[in-house]
């Protein structure tokens, strides 16, 4: 099982992870974080292959992946 | 004349265009970026030349070259960039080349902060090696920034010397209504000294070096006389509610306009206070301070957007310690409010007691 955790405090809602995810399962949520950004979440955890593309791409190091 | 609501930096740039600036070279630095940005397209429109230099060093030397060609030239920068232009400004002065240099001052030495500050006063008093001076004009409103920039070109051409317009981050970044001056259509004739190819005349040299030491010394004597002549005819100073004042605020640029608000508030309370505002930093209006009615004036507060005070010595050269002179400033890019000045006045002079 793969677990992708987005640190909502760090996320700036840039969407680079959503772009990088080959399965397009990273998306921005509706809620703003303290800095005023819509932060990213993984919408379909089961599909995730743990390819780490999202995490590699994230400029904020906001994504941690567990296996 | 219609009034335009303009950003200080852009107003300075447009004023330069109207003053006939035909060549501008600069390098990005906050808080003056709108000057090169504006001129990058505007000069093209009027047939002038804009070059983004690879550095401030290159930029000042580009205007050195264009000034040799007889063009009206300008460069602009802020603190760190002015340091890098020091050698070039010294060369301009020593080669007798007119040029306008705008410094939109920020706070702090080193990188400091891009927040406003009046931190370059000491530096502009002799902004380079070798013992030279330039006229330094210090506007306190956007309108005045426009007017002084416009005038700077004429002074530069008159003296064949660089002239500095010393603004600060507030003047550069703020917007205010201005009336722009008309486009200049006549300029001084420079054909007697510029370089444009030695056709049908002797060849010329523009140089800050000469092996003829007597000539060099004559130039130094000339410089001395020039600076003395500025003191006689180019001093500009505003006296604001100062004629009957018992207390004087001495301030230039942005801190002067803040002081004006403080003075209005205090005058409403019946306190006799006024402002003496140097418009020219060089030549400094020593006389305005020498000739104060010392039987009436009880004290002076020098307010600047920097710590420590940089204008105090010039003030004392006029005041000669005859009455107490205090200083008040904020560093770190903070801007004091009119209320802060009032508090300080109360502290040092117990004004409202």
């Amino acid at each position, binding site marked *: 099982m793969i677990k992708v955790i987005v640190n909502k405090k760090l996320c*700036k809602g840039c969407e680079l992870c959503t772009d990088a995810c080959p399965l397009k399962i990273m998306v921005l949520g509706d809620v*703003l974080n303290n*800095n*005023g950004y819509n932060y990213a979440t993984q919408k379909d955890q089961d599909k995730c292959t743990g390819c780490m593309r999202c995490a590699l791409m994230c400029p904020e190091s906001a994504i941690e992946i567990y296996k | 004349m219609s*009034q*335009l*609501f303009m950003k200080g930096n852009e107003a300075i740039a447009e004023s330069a265009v109207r003053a006939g600036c035909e060549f501008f070279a600069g390098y990005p630095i*906050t*808080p003056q970026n709108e000057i090169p940005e504006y001129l990058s397209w505007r000069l093209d429109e009027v047939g002038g030349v804009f070059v983004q230099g690879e550095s401030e060093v290159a930029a000042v030397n580009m205007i050195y070259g264009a000034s040799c060609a007889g063009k009206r030239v300008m460069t602009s920068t802020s603190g760190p960039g002015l340091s890098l232009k020091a050698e070039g400004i010294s060369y301009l002065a020593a080669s007798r080349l007119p040029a306008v240099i705008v410094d939109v001052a920020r706070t702090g030495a080193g990188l400091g*902060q*891009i*927040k406003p500050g009046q931190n370059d006063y000491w530096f502009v008093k002799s902004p380079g090696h070798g013992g030279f001076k330039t006229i330094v004009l210090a506007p306190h409103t956007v309108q005045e920034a426009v007017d002084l920039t416009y005038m700077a070109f004429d002074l530069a051409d008159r003296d064949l010397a660089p002239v500095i317009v010393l603004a600060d*981050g*507030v003047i550069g*970044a*703020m*917007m*205010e*209504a201005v009336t722009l001056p008309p486009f200049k259509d006549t300029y001084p004739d420079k054909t007697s000294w510029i370089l444009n190819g030695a056709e049908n005349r002797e060849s010329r040299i523009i140089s800050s070096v000469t092996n003829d030491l007597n000539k060099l010394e004559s130039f130094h004597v000339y410089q001395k006389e020039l600076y003395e002549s500025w003191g006689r005819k180019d001093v500009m100073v505003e006296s604001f509610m100062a004629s009957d004042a018992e207390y004087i605020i001495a301030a230039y640029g942005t801190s002067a*306009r*803040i*002081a*004006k*608000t*403080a003075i*209005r508030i205090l005058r409403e309370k019946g306190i006799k206070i006024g402002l003496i505002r140097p418009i020219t930093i060089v030549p400094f209006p020593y006389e305005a301070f020498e000739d104060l009615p010392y039987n009436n004036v009880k004290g002076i507060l020098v307010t600047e957007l920097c710590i420590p005070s940089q204008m105090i010595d010039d003030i004392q050269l006029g005041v000669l310690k005859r009455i107490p002179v205090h200083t008040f400033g904020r560093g770190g*890019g903070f*801007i004091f*409010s*009119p*209320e*802060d000045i009032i508090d300080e006045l109360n502290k040092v002079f117990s004004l409202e007691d």
Partner: protein
Amino acid sequence: MENSLLIAGFGGQGIMTLGQIIGYAATKSHLKATYYPSYGAEQRGGTANCAVVIADQEIGSPVRNKLNHIIAMNEPSFKRFEYNLIDQGSFFINSSLIKITVKKEKANVYNIAASELAMDIANIHSANFVMLGAYIAATKILDKNIVAETIDDYFTHKKEIAKISLIAFDEGFRQISKLGGKGCHDTTFK
């Protein structure tokens, strides 16, 4: 007359645009005006704010720490400037993003759900104009039509934005005019 306004919020909320439009409109109205953006490192992410002074005489300081009016678009700026408001000053609050209540006494507080209203109109980016409408309606510091004209001029090459902005401006104005309406309530002299 001399009136000092501070507009504050996140970078990207159109804070600077608002300040400039008020300045342009004041100039158009033959008033004196200064606009001073607080520029600085803080612009990246953090708060952005600008100061606008309108007066009928020469303006001294363009930056004041005693404010007649505040337009606060987000919580951090709300907190930062709350105590700079003078007594009897007016506080315009984007209640969509600010959930705290004004602690300061003797303030006129206008809560406008600007972000939500803007979303209803087109998108969140016109929340600033909702606030502007409310501000003009409540303070009457400038003529509504002159401000509207100014908005139109400002976006002269962006007709679509001009249209949306004007709708948002009207909506904000309407909120105050109909006082007590949805998302807006007057909490004077709390």
